[in-house]
């Protein structure tokens, strides 16, 4: 199959394919970070995670529309404001959901799964009623359009680079929060020994709520970033949910580094296979390999052997 291409063309194809893999990696990382906090640290299954991302995307869409109409002069930087709006919109919704629903179900993980699935259906219908059933796209500021020519054959789209930069920045922010802030310390303490954490004076109920809220907020920011490379529809969140959970579980729940490593391996595997196979078969094979490895190593790639 390579015979038809010249050396430089082959190089270009691999470079482009590799870059596509990197963008997919960034997308996976962004999707999985929020879930790694909520599922990895709290053990809560939030099936509405995708809908929290979509909320962030819709918030970005709203912000871009508002800037276009009222502040066209500042349009080139609207995206940064949109990300903050997205964080708070999804985060506040997360706080409310934790308070009204999740906290009553901490001891029933399977029920949490079903209840949050119900929530995801409701949110989907809300989006459909408010924003319409059709997909919406945001207007991208001029500086983010176009691409950087790397060689004659290889061009890199700027919005792709932007999403990658965002993925790195948000990962660093989450890392800082988890391992350098007092909130992160409390979250990790609770995830290791809830009773003890309670006893040493950590307000576990509030920390749980805040954790859930921050996880949802991160999802919102991820959704916001997605608007730069694709359009948003009411049911888009549902498409992500299985992939996202697999990334987190595959990495070993509770390990941030594991999540990133697993996002990397899954995205690279998928984009490499896409080169050789049809898109759907690449997806099937990737999922099968991931599920197969999980059957052999259910604790994921990175996890400690713990005393029962």
């Amino acid at each position, binding site marked *: 199959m390579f015979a038809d291409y010249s050396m430089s063309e082959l190089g270009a194809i691999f470079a482009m394919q590799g870059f596509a893999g990197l963008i997919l990696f960034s997308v996976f990382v962004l999707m999985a970070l929020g879930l790694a906090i909520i599922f990895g640290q709290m053990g809560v299954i939030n099936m509405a995670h995708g809908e929290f991302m979509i909320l962030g995307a819709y918030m970005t869409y709203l912000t871009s529309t508002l800037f276009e109409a009222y502040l066209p002069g500042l349009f080139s930087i609207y995206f940064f404001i949109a990300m903050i709006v997205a964080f708070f919109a999804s985060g506040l919704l997360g706080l409310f959901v934790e308070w009204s629903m999740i906290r009553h179900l901490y001891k029933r993980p399977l029920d949490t799964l079903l209840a949050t699935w*119900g929530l995801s259906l409701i949110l989907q219908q809300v989006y459909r009623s408010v924003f319409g059933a059709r997909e919406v796209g945001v207007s991208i500021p001029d500086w983010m359009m176009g691409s950087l020519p790397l060689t004659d054959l290889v061009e890199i789209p700027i919005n792709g680079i932007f999403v990658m930069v965002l993925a790195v920045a948000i990962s660093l922010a989450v890392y800082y929060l988890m391992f350098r802030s007092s909130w992160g310390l409390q979250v990790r303490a609770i995830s290791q020994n809830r009773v003890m954490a309670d006893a040493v004076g950590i307000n576990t109920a509030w920390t749980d709520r805040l954790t859930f809220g921050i996880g949802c907020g991160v999802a919102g920011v991820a959704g916001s970033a997605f608007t730069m490379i694709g359009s948003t529809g009411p049911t888009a969140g549902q498409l992500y949910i299985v992939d996202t959970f697999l990334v987190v579980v595959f990495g070993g729940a509770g390990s941030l580094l594991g999540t990133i490593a697993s996002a990397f391996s899954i995205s690279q595997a998928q984009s490499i296979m896409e080169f050789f196979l049809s898109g759907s078969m690449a997806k*099937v094979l990737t999922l099968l390999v991931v599920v197969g490895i999980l059957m052999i190593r259910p604790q994921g790639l990175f996890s400690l052997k713990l005393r029962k």
Partner: protein
Amino acid sequence: MSIASNRLFTRQDIIGFAVLAAVVFIVLPLTLDSFRLNLFGKYLTYAFVAVGLVLCWGAGGILSLGQGVFFGLGGYCMAMFLKLEASTPENTAIQSTPGIPDFMDWNQLTALPWWWEPFNTLTFALLAVVAVPVMFAFIIGVAMFRRRVGGVYFAIITQAFAAILTILIIGQQGFTGGVNGITDLRTLQGWDIRTDAAKETLYYVNGVLLFSCLLIAQFVRKSKLGRLLIAMRDQEDRVRFSGYDVASFKIFIFCLGAAFAGIGGAMFTLQVGFMSPTLVGIVPSIEMVIFCAVGGRLSIIGAVYGALLVNWAKTSLSESFPELWLFGLGGLFIAVVMLFPNGLAGLYADHVAPRIDRLLSRKSADVGPADDTARAAAE
């Protein structure tokens, strides 16, 4: 009482089975026109899945979010046979390759794939309806339960299987009919399944099969295996250290649930006349869980009512208020988890059953001796 009377049916069970039989075999056929009866027949095929879920999830604590896979596999096995019967060389004379299913011809296939061949035989197809889902369940079950994967991990991985099978079916449209599924099914051994009379017959066949599954489920629940499942759900380690190979029981019950789902899928194909990936994926699979939850996750009879009610509500609501349906379904998921964890069966057991018991015991006080002889005869 429970030591002495470890019977297959308690009085409450008998009432439950009798009322359900009356609803399925008398009330629904008498009150519904043949279009609606066929619709309810379709709902009842989901009840097979829901009954299986009561055993796996309600009793055993194993939540599978991939029951659509087994429903779909059973349904596809049936559909493949029917499709081959409909694709005679005479019927498909206009195709570039006559004698193969139309969708294969559209996708430039020139011969029937080898794995379609056995589905020319009805016996093989009927066996496959049960065997294929059970085989898949067995493989998944062995891989997961031997490695002690359970709870939410199991749920997510079964969900991934639902996603994988859907993508596979849609992607390989030359072999599977793709997103449209396998359609235009006509006859079963020459018997036209599209007529009203045939649909009515199929409704009753479906009902009888459902009751067979219910009886098997009842037997399993009342056996020691049923009590072991409950014990495993609460104290898996204690069961293991009482000398049981916990994984083998989980594999068994998961396979049984898959077998039920496969039969349900086949009956769906027969009654509705097609099978498509929309019945396999993540969304239908998790909806099947809600049928079970609404009926009451611990009650096999409740699961049947759950499937009927939720689907009936879905049809009526999405006919008149399509926007409301998703709100309703979403609300149902939340309500059944937060407010009525035991579903309809729980409400029945709390509010209706005590009254019936009181009523019956008042009566039996008048005819005491007769009741005693009846009980002795039953033992």
